[in-house]
């Protein structure tokens, strides 16, 4: 690898003092950013730091209020993503834009009319697509339909779409959040191959290790501003974390001290369920969760995690098997699960977790409505709410604050507080720290570890492997609705879990 200084020539793509506001909120405040041909440039920052906004400016979806975008040293005004495509700038969004019922090749050539004319011959296009995939080390069959592909393969199709159109600049928005560790390695190889062939790659992420592994340079954003650009070789995780949050971050150690080996309080046997499409989402899932332990459920998104949580909570009918909470077999009704001691922190905290238009007090007592009479005792409820706000360290003006006015982290703490305060024996949490900043993430994780220490059985469903490794005593992996294995933390490593996430059954 040659250490060329890419800043010498004019950058392939640059943002010059870009400002973008949304209803008075400044998402980008005089942001400067540039990426050179031949490099992988990471854009690092916490959620809400303005990374995605910046990229939407760079790809013509948003127009900056101040500042401008430069392509190859020339200032341009783009009016739509189409203009960006014309200039060879493509973005792979977190939500893929693929047509499920069409083949890989069909998706790749979709909308492309530059050459090839009116007729469309799959037999001519498919080898082209296959050759392109081969060139960049991507493993994907051009005649396969999108719905048959794994999320990782679908991502490759998105990249192929850009390459087929002659992309010179590729922007990847949080590309690794949906991948197994092995798929991440493959993606990195592809991106490096693109950079070697002279393309510019922008890699958006909030995960430090992968940013350090993949990039040549790193630009850090915080609260809508550019903190700085550094050479990857000359920096460290600690330095980057400091740049991201503006202060030193102490990463706590939540491991150990859970007294595993308690009695089984949540027992799943032969559990089967369907997803919203009516196809099997859970197949013969059997798990025991003990009092005082955290069982992590790992897996690539969409492998049955949501259905598992909903079935345990009684919100989704099961098609087979049984759920037993604290020794009591469940018929599959939400109130029944609550009464027997289930706490549930759903993935969609604003939509399902709380009633956004109600106050903290009202949200806290939503779950207790079956206990104690018809008349609401507001004074008592308010006092209880104040107590919980204090105990769980929720930052809010007071008990009357509406749930929707809380920040993501405080909202999550409110929900966890409610679920724990009703004396839950089992706590099921789905992606509890998604979208939270580093500080809030730490306190939510501390809450979960504490509740396990106090004897609650915690089921932690998360796509964030780091989180699972940090918290869980045992790790179960879901793949296409099946449990491919359960490992103790001691015997689990990223490679092994990664293979299980790709469907390999643990020996």
């Amino acid at each position, binding site marked *: 690898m040659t250490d060329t200084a890419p800043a010498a020539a004019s950058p392939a793509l640059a943002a010059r003092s870009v400002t973008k506001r*949304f209803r008075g909120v400044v998402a980008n405040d005089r942001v400067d950013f540039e990426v050179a041909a031949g490099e992988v440039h990471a854009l690092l920052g916490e959620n809400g730091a303005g990374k995605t906004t910046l990229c*939407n400016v760079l790809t013509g*979806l*948003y127009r900056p209020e101040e500042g401008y975008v430069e392509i190859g040293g020339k200032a341009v005004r783009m009016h739509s*993503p*189409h203009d960006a*495509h014309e200039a060879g700038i493509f973005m792979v969004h977190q939500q893929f*834009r*693929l*047509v*499920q*019922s*069409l083949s890989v090749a*069909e*998706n790749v*050539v*979709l*909308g*492309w*009319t530059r050459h*090839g*004319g*009116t*007729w*469309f*011959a799959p037999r001519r296009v498919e080898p082209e697509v296959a050759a392109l995939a081969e060139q960049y080390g991507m493993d994907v069959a051009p005649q396969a339909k999108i719905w048959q592909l794994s999320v990782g393969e679908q991502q490759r199709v998105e990249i192929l*779409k850009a390459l087929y159109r002659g992309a010179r600049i590729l922007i990847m928005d949080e590309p690794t959040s949906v991948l197994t560790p092995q798929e991440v390695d493959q993606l990195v190889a592809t991106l490096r191959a693109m950079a070697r062939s002279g393309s510019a790659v922008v890699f958006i992420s909030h995960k430090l290790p992968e940013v350090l592994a993949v990039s040549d340079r790193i630009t850090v954003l915080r609260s809508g501003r550019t903190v700085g650009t550094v050479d990857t070789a000359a920096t460290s995780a600690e330095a980057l974390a400091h740049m991201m949050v503006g202060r030193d971050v102490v990463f706590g150690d939540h491991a150990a001290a859970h007294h595993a080996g308690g009695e089984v309080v949540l027992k799943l046997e032969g559990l089967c369920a369907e997803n919203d*499409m*009516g196809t099997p989402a859970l197949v013969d899932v059997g798990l025991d969760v003990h009092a005082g332990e955290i069982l992590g459920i790992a897996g690539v998104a969409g492998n049955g995690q949501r259905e598992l949580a909903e079935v345990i909570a009684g919100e989704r009918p099961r098609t087979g098997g049984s759920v037993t909470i604290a020794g009591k077999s469940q018929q599959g009704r939400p109130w029944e699960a609550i009464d027997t001691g289930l706490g549930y922190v759903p993935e969609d905290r604003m939509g399902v977790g709380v009633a956004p238009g109600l106050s903290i007090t009202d949200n806290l007592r939503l779950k207790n409505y079956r206990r104690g009479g018809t008349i609401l005792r507001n004074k008592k409820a308010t006092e209880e709410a104040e107590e919980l706000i204090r105990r769980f360290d929720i930052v809010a003006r007071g008990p009357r604050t509406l749930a929707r006015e809380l920040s993501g982290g405080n909202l999550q703490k409110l929900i966890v507080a409610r679920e724990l305060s009703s004396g839950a024996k089992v706590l099921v949490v789905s992606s509890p720290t998604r979208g939270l900043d580093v500080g809030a993430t730490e306190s939510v994780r501390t809450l979960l570890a504490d509740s396990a220490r106090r004897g609650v059985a915690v089921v932690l469903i998360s796509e964030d492997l780091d989180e699972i490794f940090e918290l869980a005593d045992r790790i179960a992996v879901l793949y296409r609705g099946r449990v491919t294995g359960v490992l103790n933390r001691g015997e689990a490593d990223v490679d092994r879990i990664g293979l299980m996430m790709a469907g390999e059954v643990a020996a």
Partner: protein
Amino acid sequence: MSGINANIGISIVVSAILYGTPLLFAGLGELFAERSGILNLGVEGMMLMGAVCAFWTSQKMDGPSWLVLIVAVLVGALAGAVMSLIHAFLSITLRANQIVSGLTLTIFAGIIGLSSYLGVVGNLGAQAGRHQFSDINVFGLKDAPVVGPILFHESPLVYLSWLFVILSLLYLYRTRPGLHLRAVGESPQAADAMGVNVIRYRYLHTLLGGALAGVGGAMFTLQIATNWINGLTAGAGWIAIALVIFAFWRPDLLLVGAYLFGAFLGLGYDLQARGITSIPTEFWSALPFLMTIVALVAASTGSVRRRLGAPAALGLPYAREEG
């Protein structure tokens, strides 16, 4: 004895094709609209407008019969297309509920609406048709055994419909615009992101759908009935919508389905004419509608629809997400 049976068989096929062809035209039209994601329940209304406008033209226009008929069919197509423009504007531009908009169209143009009004104003009900399509004897093969009356002695409209089926298949699966059409109906977001003009595709195919429904309607007044009666399509538009579902949104299967339903429609008349009344003729005529109900129920159930292979964005308005 076997000769008579063979004759009955051939005449059933012939009448299946005759009654099935308007279903095929209207069904192809609806197929295109639905492939672009637009569910148009106004087919019956558009067919009735096509029927009355085509008949009006054929009665008022002077000229050689072949020219009058061609112009009449084109006017019928235009009438259907104009009607579908209403649906397109409401459901694509204004993003109205497509079911409501389509039903409104059928009521507006239908048996107690515009088509009825035009027929009464033009005093069409009292007139015998001046022009009608007659079967062509292709290659002089009409008397060839079995295939002669079926393949080589049909109305020009039947041959036109066969041409359309072939063109539809080529268009959908072998051209880029066809690929774009399928993408627009499945995922307008993905198509839009790749530079396909979703709005234009939806408008064009909804209009094409209206035009083909108009041609289907014109066939009733210019060939099947050869006069105009209020509401003469008698539900054919609804059958056409159901056919699209039965055909899994594929033109080739649509052809088979149209003739199957056409056979049921024709069978009633045919058996009646032969004095075979052991099963009431109404039963045969009612059968397509029974199946239509089943199909429409299936289509309105989300999960079933998905499994049948409906375009994923069918019935959903599309608005580009803005920052």
